[in-house]
């Protein structure tokens, strides 16, 4: 049997990720298809009429340039198509959008405020520092924006059971919360090591009625929890919706989650104009999978003067090999259903990540970030455990705000950057979550016994 393939470029324009990111500038997905280099699936020329129908179906979906795609077992392919269809319908349905907006106001507490951190500015000595207060959301982080939207989708698709992976526990808590609010059965997969680091969140999820299943394989962190959640989904796909927690996974998840988080940037852009009279010089956000970063970046993609900076976890230092900087120190690879940057060896075995912050402790990153890195629209830096700890303490002492360790990574870089800029400029930081959950980890790192 021979299979003739026609030009990938010709067909790709018609498919791919949504380019209608609400409120965003020119989105980096969809029409912005780049060269096919570096992805499996380059075409050869020629085709026959008889094979054309089958060939059409060989169009890959959900690519950001060379990144993204759907690298999953066949069992899940129909479910991904169902999810994409349900989401496209929901996006066009005013009733869905109204319900989501109403719940974001009355249940989540949006819009979240923009806060100018003047005492922290004095420490940095330079640009104005604005914090987008996602830590003030219900459940304490940006994760609820996505969990709520996907729970509405699950209900729309008639799925009565939801599952999720969680690292720090923030996404797990958000999913358990909306599952309780919507009366959905809920199972959360969490690495055993993370359960130890985030015992408080485990208890919160159980109080909310979720079953928390420990994952013991491999490094027993977010990577394994995600793999196990995908295996559950493969097994229970007919009854279950998988609420993935970041802009990772197979299409349509990276686009779906980015859309649901884009409310952060829409609000923040408007709030900056109101509070500062113009746009910030830079927008800074931490990147594990990258959902809070994309959430705030999207609204600024079209603003050329605004620098977008993603901050990865350098752990004990990039040189030690114990870090989670997939974009900074990884290579293109496939993990959990999409092609992006990953930490891996020469045979494509995924290497364990390390970070003091469980939420950044992931050896992959969302494919749209890989694309933003390649195109140069965003740049990515890394901050060590120690630097993040210092920023954690600085914000706590100077402003009375205890940040999540994840967000402390963004703060650390923002403080450095602000010091290099003038008082006429502003840096906007996504304060993606609050740090109550991290108090024990911080105490241990500071050598304090509670």
């Amino acid at each position, binding site marked *: 049997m021979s*299979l003739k*393939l026609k030009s*990938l470029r010709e067909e790709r324009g018609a498919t791919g990720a949504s380019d209608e990111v609400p409120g965003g500038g020119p989105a980096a997905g969809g029409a912005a298809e780049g060269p096919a280099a570096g992805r*499996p699936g380059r075409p050869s020329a020629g085709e026959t009429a008889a094979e054309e129908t*089958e060939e059409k179906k060989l169009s890959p979906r959900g690519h950001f340039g060379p990144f993204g795609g759907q690298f999953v077992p066949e*069992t899940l392919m129909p479910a991904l198509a169902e999810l994409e269809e349900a989401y496209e319908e929901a996006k066009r349905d005013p009733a869905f959008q109204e319900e989501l907006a109403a719940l974001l106001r009355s249940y989540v507490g949006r819009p979240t405020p923009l806060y100018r951190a003047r005492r922290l500015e004095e420490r940095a000595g330079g640009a104005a520092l604005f914090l987008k207060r996602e830590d003030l959301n219900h459940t304490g982080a940006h994760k609820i924006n996505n969990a709520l939207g996907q729970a509405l989708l699950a209900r729309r698709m008639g799925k009565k059971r939801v599952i999720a992976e969680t690292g720090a526990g923030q996404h797990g808590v958000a999913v358990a919360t909306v599952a309780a609010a919507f009366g959905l059965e809920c199972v959360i997969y969490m690495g055993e090591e993370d359960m130890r680091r985030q015992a408080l969140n485990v208890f919160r999820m159980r109080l909310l009625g979720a079953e928390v299943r420990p994952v013991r394989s491999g490094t027993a962190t977010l990577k394994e929890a995600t793999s196990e959640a995908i295996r559950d989904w493969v097994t229970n796909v007919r009854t279950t919706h998988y609420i993935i927690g970041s802009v990772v996974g197979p299409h349509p998840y990276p686009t779906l989650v980015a859309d649901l988080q884009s409310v952060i940037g829409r609000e923040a852009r408007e709030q900056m104009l109101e509070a500062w009279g113009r746009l910030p010089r830079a927008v800074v956000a931490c990147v594990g999978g990258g959902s809070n970063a994309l959430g705030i970046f999207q609204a600024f993609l079209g603003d050329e003067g605004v620098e977008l900076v993603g901050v990865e976890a350098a752990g004990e230092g990039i040189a030690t090999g114990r870090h989670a900087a997939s974009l900074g120190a990884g290579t293109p*690879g496939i993990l*959990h259903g999409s092609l992006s940057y990953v930490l891996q060896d*020469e045979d494509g*075995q995924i290497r364990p990540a390390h970070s003091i912050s469980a939420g950044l402790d992931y050896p992959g990153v969302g494919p749209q970030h890989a694309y933003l890195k390649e195109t140069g629209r965003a740049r990515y830096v890394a901050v060590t455990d120690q630097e993040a700890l210092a920023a954690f303490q600085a914000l706590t002492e100077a402003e009375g705000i205890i940040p999540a360790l994840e967000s402390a990574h963004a703060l650390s870089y923002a403080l450095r950057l602000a010091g290099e800029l003038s008082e006429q400029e502003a840096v906007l930081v996504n304060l993606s979550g609050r740090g109550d959950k991290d108090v024990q980890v911080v105490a241990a790192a500071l050598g304090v016994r509670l």
Partner: protein
Amino acid sequence: MKGAALLAKAFARAAGEGRAALIPYLVAGDPNLEVTGRALLTLAHRGADLLELGIPHSDPLADGPVIQAASTRALAGGVTVDGIFSLLREVTPRLGVPVVLLVYANTVFRRGVERFVREAAAAGAAGLIIPDLPPEEGREYIAAARRAGVATVFLAAPTSTPERLRLVASCSEGFLYCVSVTGVTGERREVPPEALELLRRAREYTRLPLSVGFGLSRPEQVQVVARQADGVIVGSAVVRVLHEAVQAGKEGAAEEAVGSLIEELRAATRK
């Protein structure tokens, strides 16, 4: 001979004997490549019609606990793709039955699709199964495999729509891998009714041999499936039996254990 033709011959031979082809699966390098090599020879000589050899991966999304654990052991033992290819080069001439490699997409991608396929062919692999690569993402792979003469085996699942069955069947060579359950690999008590239903549905779209895998471990199950399928894949049970024999530690115990298992299963493949 090209991979697809080797596979066709193996299925035809089994069919000619009134049997479904028996396809045992092993994880390469569990616990080391020497044991894998001896186990492959034993399986081939005592009843297997084809062999499926898994290249272990750090994150095997389609696999249940038994194969996950075997993969972890193999990687901990230091197995590499290079090592697996050299083992294949060494044993394939002595097997007398074709070998199909199961490999996760990232291992292929990381090496370079073209290079991986070429090296697999040179090592003697007749076909490739990439469980996390749907045809949509497989253009370059399919083209490279056609050039190298390696059969591309895609998977059909109980959830596959008619359109998708047509797609995976049209992109497959050698045989179509029919996943018996919505789920991951691992031994199960019964033959899921959806397995037989999938066979009926898949038959409408292809004349390729249909092989059923996932969840089949016991002769009774093999017997039920063999009546309607052209091939029966047994994975976790073989991996488990081999591991237990290696644990027991007696010289030759591993070969004896997989040898008797394969004979017992082979007897159940009669139509």
